[in-house]
């Protein structure tokens, strides 16, 4: 009896699998899949990001009826920050003619990079993924504006140098890097090593193994011994609040602890409470709801109950980061419609659109994001733009502006990007040469 039920269940499951409709029609809109991670150990960062992304695109649908009159079909695919599920999501959405991929995990981005050129779907990894993919000549299908991790690290050095009274004053200083021991965390090392040589500071590395994210006393003991003058934190998820707490514990001066842009979640600083006051984090979007674009989201989406975001969390740092990401997507689509002359664009058009992307001051004002982010420009050979960011400062309860816009040390970053891109293409024998033509406008 029981056996029958089990067999029946299995048969039913198998039948469902075979009849799953995989290719939904996307003729009536532009299909933009969003890879989300609202579950798993990193859900704290993933939830606000995808909320912001979905809310902005839905707002465009509600307010303007989409982009250029074409509705955007927004669909989430849950990855849980797991590469395996991410690849499954990719195969699932691929059939529905997506115009752009937002993998939202370095681990998922890396396997998708070689696929992008084959499947003709551009990847937009906003300030994450592979730094080298900023080189448009090697990676025509991958975009990572507004800045790479290397830009981020160079902005940190620039900021620290500024506080010391000039970059040359960094000579003989100790600079520590506390990072998640994974490809994501290791990203800034080559750049910091190069800068250490140029400016004569000593780089100290403090890897935090993923399994020890919430158990960092050894790393901070080492920091107490070495006494680095500045610390750059390339952490993620539960690692960040723990690091901030540990820093407070050893009385490390908070204004010398600087997180990269993924270490700037509200949940990263909040658990340490007052102890985190003064903690800085790089940021390229402003925090808060005092922007027309956020007000519109509140008006058209959140207040109408069409969002998954609790109202009091609109305007948090990573929420606004998600909004900025969607602004890039939307502007990419808009530019693509312009350069291709089509309303219903394809992945190929989107690639051209992103290459011609130019969000200047005037355009930011038009979309109601005046001062919300620095202007950004992407070009045919430069898929990043190496745009400016600023320091957000934790005032004990929320993020406030802690510095002006800081430009990255582009002259140091760019050669490294180009050589890394060359290495990548060299190591992956048979890497295709760029055949896609550049548009005039870019």
């Amino acid at each position, binding site marked *: 009896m029981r056996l029958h039920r089990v067999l029946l269940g299995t048969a039913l499951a198998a039948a469902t699998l075979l009849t799953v409709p995989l290719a939904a029609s996307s003729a009536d809109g532009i299909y933009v899949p969003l890879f989300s991670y*609202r579950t798993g150990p990193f859900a704290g960062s993933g939830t606000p990001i995808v909320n912001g992304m979905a809310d902005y695109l839905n707002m465009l649908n509600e307010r303007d009826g989409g982009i250029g009159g074409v509705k955007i079909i927004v669909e989430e695919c849950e990855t849980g920050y797991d590469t395996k599920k991410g690849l499954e999501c990719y195969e699932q959405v691929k059939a529905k003619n997506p115009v752009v991929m937002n993998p939202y995990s370095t681990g998922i981005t890396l396997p998708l990079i070689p696929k992008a050129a084959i499947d003709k779907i551009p990847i937009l990894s906003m300030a994450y993924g592979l730094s080298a993919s900023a080189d448009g000549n090697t990676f025509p299908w991958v975009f990572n504006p507004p800045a790479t991790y290397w830009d981020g690290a160079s902005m940190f050095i620039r900021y620290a140098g500024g506080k010391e009274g000039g970059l040359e004053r960094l000579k003989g200083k100790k600079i520590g890097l506390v990072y998640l021991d994974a490809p994501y965390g290791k990203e800034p090392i080559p750049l910091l090593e190069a800068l250490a040589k140029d400016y004569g500071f000593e780089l100290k590395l403090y890897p935090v193994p993923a399994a020890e994210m919430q158990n960092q006393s050894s790393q901070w003991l080492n920091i107490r011994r070495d006494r680095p003058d500045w610390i750059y934190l390339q952490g993620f998820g539960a690692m960040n609040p723990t690091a901030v707490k540990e820093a407070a514990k050893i009385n490390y001066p908070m204004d010398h602890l600087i997180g990269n842009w993924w270490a700037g979640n509200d949940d990263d600083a909040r658990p340490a409470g007052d102890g985190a006051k003064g903690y800085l984090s790089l940021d390229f979007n402003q925090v808060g709801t005092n922007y027309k674009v956020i007000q519109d989201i509140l008006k058209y989406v959140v207040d109408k109950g069409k969002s998954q975001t609790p109202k009091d969390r609109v305007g948090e740092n990573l929420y606004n980061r998600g909004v900025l990401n969607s602004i890039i997507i939307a502007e990419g689509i808009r530019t693509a419609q312009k350069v291709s002359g089509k309303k219903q664009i394809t992945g190929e058009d989107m690639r051209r659109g992103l290459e011609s992307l130019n969000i200047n001051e005037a355009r930011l004002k038009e979309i109601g994001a005046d001062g919300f982010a620095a202007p950004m420009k992407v070009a045919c050979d430069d898929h990043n733009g190496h745009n400016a960011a600023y320091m957000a400062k934790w005032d004990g309860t929320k993020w406030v502006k802690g510095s002006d816009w800081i430009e990255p040390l582009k002259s140091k970053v760019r050669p490294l990007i180009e050589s890394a891109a060359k290495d*990548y293409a060299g190591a992956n024998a048979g890497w295709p040469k760029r055949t896609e033509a550049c548009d005039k406008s870019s």
Partner: protein
Amino acid sequence: MLYREVGQYKTNYAADMSVMPLIQDRVGIGIILFIAAVIIPYFGNAFLIQAIMIPFLVFSLAAIGLNLLTGYTGLLSLGTGAFMGVGAYACYKLTTYFPGVNILIWIIASGLFSAVVGVVFGLPSLRIKGFYLAVATLAAQFFLSWCFIRQPWFYNYNASGAIEVPTRTLFGIPVTGATAADATRYYVVLGIVVAMTWLASNLVHGRIGRMWMAVRDMDLAAELIGIRLLRTKLLAFAVSSFYCGVAGALLVFQWYGSAEPAVFDVNLSFFILFMVIIGGLGSLTGSYLGAALIFILPIVLRYIPPHLGIPIRPATVDHIQYMVIGALIVLFLIVEPNGLARLWQIGKQKLRVWPFPY
């Protein structure tokens, strides 16, 4: 009625000892192979091949590997993920050092490296047993994971810290890298997995398999009847790790295309262990069934709500999916602790006497 053995005579010893003595079994396997080799590549879409079949076959191979160790020899291991990692990294190192040699040779050869590492970490098994051994294999898991992350030699000092798969060809057709067609990759995986299953089947039905099972049932007694424990256990570790290593190489080279060290973390080990236990300890068919249940069922569960038109958020689906899988694991264990393989046998028995109850 449907599964009758009446009238099938065995006239010599070899026929009596064959793995599939019944014509129905042979026909069944033939049909399954036909579906796998012809129907699926010709009629399946990219999602079926790339996101379901290839991973399913890779996990089945790893599950067979772990089953040889845990199911047949009774040595519980939680280091499967790391042994798969050894295979993947070995294959990566080999093919970048010697790009001229055919990639298929390196995929198989990487299993040998994994086997050597498996033997080293299997050494404590002589003295340590049961859950103590399971935790000892965790040492392998964490040590090897640490190597993949912290020792840049393993990933050729590249900037991303991940291993990337270069394009390699076989008779001029790309079999790895992004340019390889789905069907090509699928055939490579299918070929290797079928061949290695056949090999494993012969292994466990022969002298070595019997030695393993004797050790599993009671190692002291096995020693008394003249089985050398250390050799047998280490052989099990070696063969098991070989299978896992090849599975790991296939995972990166035929499926992922690029892998962070985190791919081979302890969760992968647990994932494979689920498959082996749910599928049935000591059964090769069970390894396939377990891989199907543990890997494919969640995908199916994800598609049921949208398919039925239930407006439900993807994250909620994920949460419910976890609960359902958790509950199903417990339920399966309660219904049939010997796994899906046992259910399959019961099913066969029912077919044999059908339409009569017994």
